Structures are given as C-alpha cells and as structure tokens.
C-alpha cells in the first residue's frame, strides 16, 4: 500500500469508528465500509463483494438500549484490510477475510465498552462546564468522546497495516481449501443467527401468519425483494384497516370494539 492509501484507510477507519456509535450515515455498515477501503486501496470490486457478504451476516445486528451488538465497524474495516493485504481475491480468500471478521467483531465489543465507560468521566466534565454556563467546553467534550470512538477503530487498523503483507499472505495461504470452503458454507448458515435474534424479538401470536406468508411467497423466484416489500406493505395496510373496520361494525353504537377477530367480524357483518 502506498502512503496515501494508508492515510486514506486510516481516515476511513476513523469515520467508521465514529459511525459505529452514531449509527446515522451508516458508514460503518460492511457494505459501505468495505467498499470505501476497496476504493482507497484500488481493489474496489473484491471489497464490494466482501462487504455484501458481511452485510448479509450483519443484517440483524443493532444496538438496542444499552446493549451493544458485535462491532460491525471493526469487523468490516479489519476484514477488508486483511483481504487487501492478502493480495488474493478469489472466493476462498474472501471467505477467510469474513471468517476473520467474527472474532474481530467480538473483540470490538470490548473496545466499545471501554470507550463508553471513559465517556462517563468525560461527561462529568461537561456537567461542570454547564454549571458555569459555558457552551464551548461542553461542545469540545462531546466531540472528544466522539473522537475516541473513531480511534477505537483507527488504532487497530494502523496495527493491522503495520504487520507486513507477506506474513498476512503466508498466514492466509497456509489455510487449506477444505477449511476455507467449509467456512464459506458456514457463512451461508451464519446469517440464520441474526434473523433468529430479530424474529425472537418481534414474534407474537398475531404476526406469525405473516411470517408464513412471506416464506411461501419468497419461494417464487420471479418475485424480487422490492416486489415482496410491496406485497408486505399492502398486507400490513390491509390488515390494519380491516381490524378497524371489524371493530366498528361489530361494536355498533356502543363503540365496543369487535371480537378481536377482524376477518370474523367482517364475515359477520355480511
């Protein structure tokens, strides 16, 4: 990597670290972060493929409340750097790069926790500034905490770059085919974990039939994701409107609100 590429990689890593906590522009999502690393190192397409593969795995990862998901920012940046330094861009090496992403995502969890703990102390400084009615120091503290989140990814990225490319290459080349092919197969299954987490969180007795509908319709390969999205929106709107109509027709003047079975209520009204 040239000096300019290295500097740009570090900047991308820093931005991804910031985004990992902000969750706004989504620069830390593998789809974007890996693509940016590919862009600044001149290996755009393999990194786009890596990003897409990692994105599939990370679809259901989200920070909820105080809980932190595995760190996608570190996983995407580090695996992209590993792929680029490896210098070999076939499917097996892409699989190895995102295989490496998993332990890094876990390691990243601890880094996030450390920064979130340091921020507790920083915010106490902001309390003091607020009491004095001073705006500038308060803003500075906020930006400092944000900068620490950027360093949380930028520093590991620098360490990875410092390891000579030849040793990364020989480490990757020493991995036998049965392992990398097996990892690719494992990667196809790992996405189930993310979906399982989300389904567990959303599933209620009322919404399970919609899951069945989605599964059956998805088997029709002519339907694109956008078409399926449109069907989903339509079903949700129909269901919500129907449950209101059912409530109204059965409740009559007393505003009673139906039997809780919208389709039954509509049928009764006929």
């Amino acid at each position: 990597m040239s000096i300019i590429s290295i500097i740009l990689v570090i900047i991308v890593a820093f931005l991804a670290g910031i985004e990992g906590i902000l969750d706004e522009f989504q620069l830390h999502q593998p789809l974007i972060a890996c693509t940016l690393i590919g862009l600044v190192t001149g290996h755009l397409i393999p990194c786009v493929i890596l990003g897409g593969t990692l994105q599939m795995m990370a679809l259901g990862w989200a920070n909820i409340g105080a809980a932190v998901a595995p760190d996608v920012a570190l996983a995407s940046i580090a695996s992209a750097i590993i792929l680029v330094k490896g210098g070999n861009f076939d499917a097996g090496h892409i699989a190895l790069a995102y295989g490496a992403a998993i332990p890094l995502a876990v390691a990243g969890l601890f880094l996030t926790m450390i920064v979130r703990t340091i921020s507790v102390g920083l915010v106490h400084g902001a309390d003091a500034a607020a009491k004095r009615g001073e705006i500038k120091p308060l803003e500075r503290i906020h930006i400092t905490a944000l900068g620490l989140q950027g360093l949380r990814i930028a520093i590991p990225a620098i360490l990875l770059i410092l390891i000579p490319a030849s040793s990364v290459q020989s480490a990757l080349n020493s991995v036998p085919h049965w392992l990398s092919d097996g990892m690719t197969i494992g990667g196809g299954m790992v996405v189930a974990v993310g979906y399982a987490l989300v389904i567990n969180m959303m599933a209620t007795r009322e919404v399970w039939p919609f899951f069945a509908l989605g599964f059956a319709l998805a088997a029709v390969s002519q339907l694109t994701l956008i078409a399926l999205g449109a069907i989903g929106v339509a079903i949700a709107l129909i269901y919500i409107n129907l449950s209101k109509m059912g409530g109204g027709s059965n409740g009559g003047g007393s505003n009673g609100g139906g039997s809780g079975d919208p389709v039954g209520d509509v049928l009764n009204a006929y």
Partner: protein
Amino acid sequence: MTEERISLTKSDRLAVAWRSTFLQGSWNYERMQNLGFAYAMIPAIKRLYKSKEDRAAALTRHLEFFNTHPYLASPILGVTLALEEERANGAAIDDTAVQGVKIGMMGPLAGIGDPVFWFTVRPILGALGASLAIAGNIMGPIIFFVVWNILRWGFLWYTQEFGYKAGSEITKDLSGGLLKDITKGASILGMFILAVLVERWVNVKFVLELPAKKLAEGAYINFPKGDVSGAKLQEILGQQAGGLSLTKEVPNTLQANLDSLVPGLMGLLLTFLCMYLLKKKVSPIILIVGLFVVGVVLHVLHIM
C-alpha cells in the same frame, strides 16, 4: 408587557436537526445520550437565553438521563424546542415538566424506532444492496447509502418540525391510535420480510448423493443399437426436446428431495433452531462460531 416574543428561526431548527446527527457521540453508561441531547439543543439555547445563569440552567436541565432511538429523538427535540421557547417567553414551564415530556416520549418512541429502522428498513435496504454487491455490482453500496440517508434526513427534519409544531400535544397524539398502528404495521411488515430473507439468504445446501432413481419405461430414450438413420436421429432429438431422459437412471440428491417439499426448508429449520437456542440463553457469538465449525465439519464429511 410589551416585551417582544423570542422565537426560534428556521435556521436554528435546522442547526438542531443537524446536530441531532451526533446525538450518540458521547454515549456513556451513566446517562447515555444526555450530553448528545444538550449538544443538539445548543443553537436553541443560544437563541433563547442570553444571560449566563439562564444558559447554565438550560444546559444542566438537558444533561439529565436521556436515551431513545437516535432518529426518534427528533420529535422529542421538536417538542422540547417548543417547550423551551414557551419558557423563554415567560410561560410557567418548570424543569420537571421538560424532563417529564422527554422521559414520557423516549420509551414508546424507541419502541417504534427499533423495529422500523433497525429491523425493517435497514435489513431490507441492506439485503437489497448486499445482493447486488455479492455479484460485484458497485450500485449495491451506492443505493444503500443514498436511499438510507435521504430517508434518514427526511425523517429527522420532518419529525422534528412535527414535534415543534405540535408541541406538547404530540404525546397525546402518539399514545393513541397512530402509535399502535405504526408499531403493528412495522412488526407485520418486519415478520413478512424476515421470512423472505430467511428463505432467500440462509444457505443450507447438501451435496450428499442418494441412490440414483430408476426411471420407468418410456421416461427415457431407447437408443437403437447399430447405425442411426436420419429419420431415427430426428425422432431421438424430438424425444429429448420433449423432455425424456438420456439415461435409464437419474442422479438423486438429498437437496433435490428437500427442494421438492419447499425451497429453503432447511434454512427455516436452522433459523428456528437458532431461535430456540437463543431463548435458552446461548450466546449469539457461540452460535456463529458453532455454525462455522459445523460448516467445515460437514464439508469435510462431503455432506455439504
């Protein structure tokens, strides 16, 4: 009482909306997004309060505990802006009222934000972008980034303005039917799309060969022994075009049999297994590592 009314300009409100992008910058384990909220409110505080004491009070007021979905902080910011504006103009709105409105809104709104943004919009856009990206198409990341940020910024600005105009009325408004409809609609759409994603993107493919199936007489082409005349060749080619098999036996795989039930069945079962294990408090990290191990082992055994 001829004092002129102070009100927030549109550029003040735009500045607040822009700063709300950095809401989680100093996220901490103690009061979570508190400093981020105060940071976002600063343009308004500067406009509304001129004395050091007033500013100190306002900053301290907004350094209380705050935590919600980062995008749904916008309607709360809007309402808080309206309250602060009233207060600066002399209305009797005390600290507890401001804090009460913030706390009252942040819980239910976070409950909408997580299913809508993290579990519906992002997985859908992400899967769309990723499916293009896996094929090496640069449009994947570009579509994801552009569409997401248009949606996000539109949402931040619109809901903040909505909150600002509705003022404290927003809490009454959202606790009724609208809130329920949005939450229910999002979970229906979410479950529907999740099933689609499970079917399309959980790859469980077996390569295990089963004993070949013998075909019945007439389901395969009977090749004549000896020379083939032009007419005979035409007949054979016609039979092949008609869908008859070239051999008496067809190879049979476990995967073909499973696919004839319903495509994606094993992926669905795997997802259910993961859900069960997660409910049993198995860590997702262990599951992820375990599935990689299973993938490698089954591949070495030539099952997958």
